[in-house]
């Protein structure tokens, strides 16, 4: 794992992880000890790189959503979810709200990303979503919120830098669009500080500092991104996936990403 830049950073992240505590109190290492034990047992020196990676990702999956709990009193009213390089998610919204004909136009390029968002706003209707149509893909979902101390820039590329999302393809702008939607924090269950387990193999994640969450100092109650470039870190949290039914207002296209 330590033989590649990705592995080096993942290892560093694990070393700096302080909030993987499950339902125990801050400073109790038992959950983290079990995480490490499970990881080590799958990390046999005789296994292939692929098997060791699979094992690590599997353990991360098992330990998702076990960071420090975020006290209800510090939660903002609305959470914001940024979604990038994710046509399949937009496709689902198009299919549900605008119909199958629109999906085919979108695939063919006859319905542009901008056109899709314009029409989603016209016809937005949360009743078309089912309980399994989540705001994210997996069990846990990352979200952020508008922080007064660290406002996000307006530009799509700068936002992604602030969120530390690497943009790997920029030659095709239709792939690199960024959008956001918001929902009430009352609609989510047990928001927590993100941990290395929530980030999985994604090494640009930054574990939260080794400080006990203190509701009097709200900044200690969230994770913070480590931005690329000169952007300010943004608050982040994870929560259980919830249905798109909680998204009362149509998602908003921020723009395409230019590097």
């Amino acid at each position, binding site marked *: 794992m330590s033989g590649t830049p990705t592995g080096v950073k993942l290892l560093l992240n694990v070393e700096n992880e302080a909030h993987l505590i499950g339902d125990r109190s801050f400073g109790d290492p038992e959950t983290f000890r079990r995480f490490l034990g499970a990881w080590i047992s799958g990390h046999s020196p005789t296994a292939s790189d692929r098997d060791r990676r699979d094992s690590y990702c599997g353990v991360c999956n098992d330990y998702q959503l076990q960071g420090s709990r975020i006290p209800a009193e510090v939660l903002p009213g609305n959470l914001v979810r940024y979604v990038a390089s994710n046509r*399949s998610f937009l496709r689902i919204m198009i299919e549900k709200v*605008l*119909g*199958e*004909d629109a999906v085919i136009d979108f*695939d063919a390029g006859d319905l542009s990303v901008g056109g899709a968002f314009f029409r989603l706003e016209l*016809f937005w209707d949360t009743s078309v979503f089912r309980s399994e149509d989540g705001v994210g893909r997996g069990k846990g979902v990352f979200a952020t919120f508008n922080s007064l101390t660290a406002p996000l820039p307006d530009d799509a590329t700068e936002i992604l830098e602030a*969120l530390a999302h690497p943009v790997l393809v920029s030659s095709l702008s239709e792939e690199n669009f960024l959008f956001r939607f918001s929902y009430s924090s009352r609609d989510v269950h047990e928001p927590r500080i993100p941990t290395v387990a929530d980030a999985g193999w994604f090494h640009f994640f930054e574990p939260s500092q080794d400080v006990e969450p203190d509701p009097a100092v709200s900044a200690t109650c969230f994770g913070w991104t480590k931005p690329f470039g000169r952007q300010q870190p943004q608050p982040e949290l994870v929560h259980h996936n919830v249905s798109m039914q909680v998204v009362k207002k149509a998602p908003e296209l921020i723009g395409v990403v230019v590097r």
Partner: protein
Amino acid sequence: MRRAAFIPRLRDNGEVDLSCLEGMGDEWIWNWLKSRLSGDDPHFPIDPRVGEDPEALVVGLLREAGERSGLWRTIARAVRYLLYEASDVIPEVPPFFGPALRICQRCRFTEVEGWFVETLRRLAENSDPLERAWGERLVKEITYAAVLQIPGIPTSPARQAWLHLFEDPRYTTIALRGLGASFSQRLSYLPQWWQICARGDREKQVDNMIFTALKVHSFQEICPLLQSQQYRFPYELEVAINDALERYGAARVFIVHGSYIRSIMNAGRRSEMDPPEDLWK
């Protein structure tokens, strides 16, 4: 001969440098693609926080490389292997299957035509076994991809399958697109489609058809096409088309009458007769 180990390369601006993938060979590309589309890429990590699609990078690379490139063909062959692999392990649903289908919805590969013709025929014959095995969602994704891969032009081996699916309310809209690549080709199927499509679904599909037609063509182009269909279209379809045109700032094209007047108009009307031009003046 042992192949050199893969060294991922990014350009200064963070883009993937295509040249690092070129020449990696079928087996390596197949393994990488299978892993990436399954959600695991050790070389170009997938960001779980913003819900990155695993196939987005692949489609981007294909578009950049172009259809004539060696990389396009290598990836096309790898996608074909993955599709057949998914068929071989039914009723399992391998994690790469959905993303592989989504690549096929965006990029046309001659290499996968055989798989799509075969699968669409099976679906048209009896959709139950495939829907039970893969779920309705994935089966629908197959039909979306089939619109691009095997359009139902008259000479296509998939045409009968498309015609069959057109009769099924769950697939009728997708099949309409499979049968008619252009707006004008689709018009002749519209009256039948209107009867088959689920009631609560029809207006939004028509709205999209008009929105895209206005965008891709122009009102001047589509207006005579639509007007040529007057009296062929059911009353509600004409209303839906008029409403959509108005919503997007265009003029109505149909003079829509109540059913009473309409039935008088249609009574005894021979199909080759055109209504007198001054009838509604």
